[in-house]
């Protein structure tokens, strides 16, 4: 990953900017909302990529430590994915998450299924409510040193 950052530095013009976006080191959560009212909120028990995120943060820190980039600013934000049903959201993830070569532990899958079942129950009793998958994320600005 550090080599990739060094290559990005090479491709950038002097004074160029790298914007790096990745999930924050926080557990994503699932909400059900109706007209802004929060009806359901639980953490995603299937979250299991903390180690990957730590590697990403370490790669950026190493590139900064080597003087490849200068860290200038960063912002935390929430990326919200909206769906009308659990099925719709999970179908979306089945495609979007297909890049992840690692299989989740059976226990995590079961806990995630149970969480989505609870969200489904709330949705069923709340016409017009929406499901939201909330992913805390970090965006950093680094400049070529």
């Amino acid at each position, binding site marked *: 990953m550090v080599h990739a950052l060094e290559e990005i530095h090479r491709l950038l013009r002097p004074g160029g900017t790298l914007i790096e976006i990745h999930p924050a080191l926080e557990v994503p959560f699932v909400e059900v909302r109706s007209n802004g009212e929060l009806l359901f909120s639980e953490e995603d028990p299937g979250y299991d990529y903390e180690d990957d995120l730590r590697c990403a943060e370490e790669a950026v820190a190493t590139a900064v430590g080597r003087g490849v980039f200068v860290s200038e600013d960063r912002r935390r934000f929430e990326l919200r994915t*909206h769906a009308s049903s659990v099925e719709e959201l999970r179908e979306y993830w089945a495609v979007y998450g297909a890049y992840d070569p690692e299989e989740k532990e059976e226990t995590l899958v079961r806990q995630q299924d149970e969480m989505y079942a609870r969200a489904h129950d709330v949705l069923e009793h709340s016409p017009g409510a929406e499901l939201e998958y909330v992913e805390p994320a970090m965006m950093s600005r680094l400049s070529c040193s």
Partner: protein
Amino acid sequence: MTVRIDPEGHETEALFALVELEGREVLEIGCGDGRLTWRYADRVAHVTAIEPFGDSIARANLRLSEAPTERVEFRHVLFEDLAAASDADVFDVALLSWSLC
């Protein structure tokens, strides 16, 4: 309803607060289906958006074919291969989009 990602615009709000994109030559690494690309493309001089997954880049190119613009170029290529074939000092901004981990 189809799945909607970030209709609140939190991601672009952070992006535009952090970097000036007007007239810039941009490289986006890990563009997926172009979800984020289209949200800033009208500001840049040109964006080369790359993605290693063929299905995603096919969706990106399908949308590009429906709204052609010379500002946006989607390429199905690994970053390592793009870098190996590229000269130095060609982009003003690199956007590493959810792909470092």
